[in-house]
């Protein structure tokens, strides 16, 4: 509860001005601050008050207890590509950031590697920065399941007491992490875009809120481990060092068929084999401006000519014109190609948060006011339907000449 010390309050209205939620007002009659029902206890006003008139009671945990937790954990999520098990890029990206956090804390970095036969992935994880790989192999971990994976990871966390656990914010990561947080009564911050260690050795987790319109930094001061999820392509992948050594620790896994309650009936691959917009170097992205499903043909031709992959905004997925694995944005994927060309995408904030880390952004849109131009390195105001055919023609001529 946010408390107002009526004696100390001078009615200066600083709190009223700084409150992001309009949840504190100075009552004209009394000239004293009053907390309203929509207060979220974010504490912004407490820091802003020059008269120490505002306070929030927060509980504390002893440093002794906190010190029992050390090691930074990363969930080593893998995927199947052409029938082979390969580590996901996001897991390697987390190892890069995890290494940095572990070094700042003076702790070791460990990977939780679950699966049926996944030992062959371990050395590569060590090369990417891991000190320890907890190898949890079991028949029932062959496919991802909420119950199986949550149970095994919770057990390792409870036994090993890490200070930090990081998950890729993939569909399965976002399915798994809250389950573990719920079980162990832990804090969990989703879709972090920044992770750091503050002066109190706490994990400082930064994430966008309200579709990226504001940023919030979040702490889990009283519980350990501190858990975060991070979207793919947010952190860079570290360079592997083949001389790095580490240990592989095999974990005994006890799972029974009955402990996995969901059964997979069918797997459907809905997009063309090989299309992965998260890994593409050049993305040709289209929005509502495309007008009709038939117009995809020319966009695909363009993508072929420049060696790019087609992606798009949520509007097209909602219309059923584009499969959802090719959707960029808050409710789709986060991408960071070297070149992102946006055709007919206005650039709603939910879209922008999914692509602003691209190295170069080009936008073509007929509305000069479209927000996409604010993030574009190069913009053309014009009709995509007229420009694309001309461009393909010119490009073909250019290729012939050179």
């Amino acid at each position, binding site marked *: 509860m946010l408390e107002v010390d009526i004696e100390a309050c001078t009615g200066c209205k600083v709190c009223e001005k700084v409150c992001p939620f309009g949840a504190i007002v100075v009552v004209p009659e009394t000239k004293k601050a009053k907390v309203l029902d929509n207060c979220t206890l974010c504490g912004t006003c407490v820091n802003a008050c020059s008269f120490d008139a505002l306070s929030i009671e927060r509980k504390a945990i002893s440093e002794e207890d906190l010190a029992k937790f050390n090691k930074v954990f990363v969930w080593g999520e893998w995927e199947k590509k052409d029938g082979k098990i390969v580590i996901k890029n996001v897991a390697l990206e987390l190892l890069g950031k995890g290494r940095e956090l572990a070094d700042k804390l003076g702790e070791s970095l460990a990977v939780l590697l679950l699966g049926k036969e996944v030992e062959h992935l371990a050395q590569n994880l060590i090369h990417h920065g891991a000190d320890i790989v907890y190898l949890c192999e079991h028949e029932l971990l062959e496919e991802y399941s*909420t119950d199986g994976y949550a149970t095994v990871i919770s057990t390792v966390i409870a036994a090993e007491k890490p200070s930090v656990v990081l998950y890729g914010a993939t569909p399965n990561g*976002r399915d798994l992490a*809250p389950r573990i947080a719920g079980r162990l009564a832990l804090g969990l911050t989703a879709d972090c875009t920044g992770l750091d260690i503050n002066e109190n050795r706490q994990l400082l987790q930064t994430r966008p809120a*309200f579709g990226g319109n504001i940023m919030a930094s979040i702490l889990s001061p009283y519980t350990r481990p501190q858990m975060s999820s991070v979207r793919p392509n947010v952190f860079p992948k570290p360079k592997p060092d083949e001389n790095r050594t580490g240990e592989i620790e095999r974990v005994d896994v006890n799972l029974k068929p009955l402990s996995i309650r*969901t059964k997979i009936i069918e797997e459907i691959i809905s997009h063309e084999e090989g299309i992965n917009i998260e890994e593409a170097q050049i993305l040709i992205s289209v929005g509502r401006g495309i007008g009709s499903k038939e117009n995809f043909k020319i966009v695909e031709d363009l993508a072929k000519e420049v060696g790019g992959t087609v992606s798009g905004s949520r509007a097209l997925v909602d219309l059923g014109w584009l499969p959802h*694995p090719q959707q960029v944005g*808050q409710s789709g994927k986060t991408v960071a190609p070297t070149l992102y060309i946006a055709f007919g995408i206005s650039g709603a904030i939910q879209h922008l948060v999914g692509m602003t880390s691209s190295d170069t952004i080009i936008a073509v849109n007929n509305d000069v006011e479209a927000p996409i131009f604010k993030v574009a390195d190069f913009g053309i105001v014009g009709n995509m339907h007229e420009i694309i055919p001309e461009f393909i*023609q010119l490009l073909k001529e250019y290729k012939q000449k050179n």
Partner: protein
Amino acid sequence: MKIVILVKQVPEADKVAVDPETGTLIREGVDSILNPYCEYALDQAAKLKLEFPELNIEITAITMGPPQAKAVLYRCLELGADKGYLLSDRKFAGSDVWATSTALKEGVMHIEPDFDLILAGKQAIDGDTAQVPAETAEQLGVPQITYGVDVKLNGKRVEVKRETEIGYQVLSVRMPALVTMSKGSNIRRIPSMKQVLDSRSKPVETLTAADMNIDEDKIGLKASPTQVDKIFAPPAKTGGEIIEGSDPKVAAKKLLDYLVENKFIKG
């Protein structure tokens, strides 16, 4: 059969912005709405109710929030829910994912302890965390299926088509279970006049922490493992060169020049 829908009131996210000078939220003219993904979940429940009249499906909408969040419950009643409950108490203030899911769990156990299916939106468009439903499922001890696009009832089991990174998978689980919904074929409907009139006779109840006998230590800020340290505006971006008013041919040439110049197209 009893279906519980967990819903959330959200501001229309596009319209929330931060004043770059003061760092405060600009909230004038921002309406509150029922989170679209919750609406898809409700649409799914309403479809199941139509499809299986013999199951006597009863749909209960539950939300946690300030008194004004009642508005989204009325919307739920118009769109097919049979009754609504608002969990509202100053003691819930400052709740993070853990504390929110604790309150929702207690709410479900108080209101509809013998539920068969809980449906929720896959994420809320304001926080986008996608975590509250899964933590609630964990606290209730029931299995979950996230990112559902289609739900089928099959005896005591529920079959869910789920979005994956490469397409879809179909999962089956025995009820009681919790399923979170993405869009799929579900839509945000406009209620008919009859639905609006019918909804007026449906009950909406507000429950406080004390009404549900929730231990005060388990809710609100004190029970929240995560805390907001700071809120700030994202760094402002300025765009690069913009070409305007060109003939399509000229524009296409300039695009090609830019790509060649920056070595995206090699000669």
